């Protein structure tokens, strides 16, 4: 029998069955996503009913009195992530420039590989290293000299090693591979003719980079930064091991703090009562929404600049 004959038997031909099965697994993805959103909303409802939108701006987090406010965690999440971005951006751009413009071809692959290996290290290991190596270094060598500047709000307080600065530095190291590899890929796609045009006009090598390549890659780099931000916002283990786990809001880098993810990780297993759990789930919902928004923003940006097919193979 030829395949055409089998088709005439009706919808039960092997072709349609196979297509149907694989399509159902594709639809499963939608079901899973729906399930995630549904469960997060359902379990946050008790907390939402008790606190409403004040949850997002209240500073009180007291499980004993059953009072829950998310502001210290939201603050800590964004503060540490922005510190990480400020530290990671120059280094990531430097790496991207090095790999895309400066490195000889034989050096590109090994160095890219090594930097990507940084991304493969589990968050837990970063936390371990941060707790036992970075924190003491900060406490004894980096923070004491900085505390001479304690007229600035960023350096007030006693150097403990653990705290916002440690968390920011670790997050920076963790997002460097993300930002640098996407920026590098975007810079690869800058047409050689543009660089040659710059050189023909008499620019030095660096001027070609800073006035031609980087501006051309502006949107892609922004997308990379936003993706890095998304990664930093959701990091849990590394942060919870070095940030000091104190729900307070302070500008000082020496002070301990708390992030949404760290709070959930620390309190969920031993939460007191349904309201506590619901508040933690609501925190998770907030984090989920923030991550989704950030990721979609990055995707949209990359889509916008890829409309001409310029970013084929960048891997976003």
């Amino acid at each position, binding site marked *: 029998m030829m*395949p055409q004959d089998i088709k005439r038997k009706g919808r039960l031909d*092997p*072709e349609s069955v*196979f*297509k149907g099965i*694989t*399509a159902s697994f*594709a639809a499963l*993805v*939608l079901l*899973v996503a729906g399930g*995630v959103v549904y*469960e*997060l909303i359902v*379990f946050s409802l008790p907390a939402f009913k008790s606190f409403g939108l004040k949850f997002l701006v209240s500073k009180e987090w007291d499980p004993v009195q059953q009072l829950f406010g998310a502001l210290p965690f939201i603050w800590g999440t964004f503060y540490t992530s922005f510190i990480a971005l400020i530290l990671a951006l120059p280094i*990531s*751009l*430097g*790496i991207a*420039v*090095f*790999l895309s413009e400066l490195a000889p071809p034989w050096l590109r692959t090994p160095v890219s*590989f090594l*930097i*990507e*290996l940084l991304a*493969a*290290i*589990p*968050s*837990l*290991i*970063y*936390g*371990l*290293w941060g*707790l036992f190596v970075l924190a003491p270094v900060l406490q004894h060598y980096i923070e004491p000299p900085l505390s001479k500047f304690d007229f600035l709000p960023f350096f007030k307080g006693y150097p403990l090693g653990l705290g916002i600065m440690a968390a920011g530095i670790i997050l920076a*190291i963790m997002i460097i591979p993300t930002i640098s590899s996407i920026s590098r890929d975007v810079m690869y796609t800058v047409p050689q003719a543009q660089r040659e045009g710059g050189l023909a006009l008499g620019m*030095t*090598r*660096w001027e070609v*980079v*800073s006035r031609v390549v980087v501006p051309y890659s502006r949107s892609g780099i922004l997308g990379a930064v936003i993706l890095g931000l998304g990664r930093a916002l*959701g990091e*849990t*283990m590394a942060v919870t*091991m070095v940030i000091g786990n104190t729900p307070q809001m302070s500008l000082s880098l020496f002070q301990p703090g708390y992030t949404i*993810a760290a709070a*959930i*990780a620390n309190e*969920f*297993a031993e939460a007191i009562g349904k309201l506590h759990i619901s508040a933690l789930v609501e925190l*998770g919902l907030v984090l*989920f929404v923030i*991550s*989704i928004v950030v*990721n*979609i923003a990055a*995707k949209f940006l990359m889509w916008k600049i890829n409309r001409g097919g310029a970013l084929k193979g960048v*891997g976003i």
Partner: protein
Amino acid sequence: MGRDLRYMKRKAVGHFWLAFSVLSALCAVGFLFWILGYVLSKGVHAINMDFFTKLPTPVGIPGGGMANAVVGSIIVVGMASLVSVPAGIAAAIYLSEYGRGMFASFVRFVSDVLAGVPAIVAGIVAYALVVVPLHGFSAISGSVALALLMLPIIIRSAEEIFKTVPDSLREASLALGVPRWVTVLRVVVKTASGGLVTGVLLAIARVGGEAAPLLFTSSSNVFWSFKPTQPMGTLPVQLFTYAISPYEEWHEMAWAAAFVLVSMVLLLNISARLYLARKGFKR
């Protein structure tokens, strides 16, 4: 003369920034070696056969190991893979071979969005889905959390691999009269099998080191446990518990566990990328 000076200044500034960029690369690679070097050197002293054969002992009693945690990790990750790998590959087959319309684009978009879900949120969802109905922590809830994390990764990497199978192979098979679905299974998937395995290994490496989603799903267990409906010790959770404890002997064990974890992750990543590089996937 002034013009020469200006040019020299531009050159000097350029050299400075180019040096900065080389320094950044060195800095990042330096961090890698610092972190890996420290973990591996600390861990290699703490690791011994006991680690893989004995159960944890109470504080103060020397010796003991994390045998149950190692086995537990294998079981929890194994169960997660059992569910997410076939489902992910099947979905990727649909997206790559049949997906041209709005449905496929939407699924791709949702899958990418799911890929950005933080690990801890996956843990919360698994808690809601499994821990609450079962009234207790269980290995299976941990697997659900990990499967949630693995699914988008596998779909994305499998689809990428399928894209690299040349259309000429598909067309040749169809030209010979092979039905489309057989072509997909016997030609496309078969050709892609190496890349698929690599993608799965990378997903396992990524998920095997996660502690956050397991903290309140599979939780921890210091005894041998093979029941999926009971809490099960896993390497990352045990590592975390020991690392933040105040006991020096537990810190030693934490380094040993870190050594095992890092070695596993490194091994999987390096072999996966070597394989992909050999097959010509330029990065």
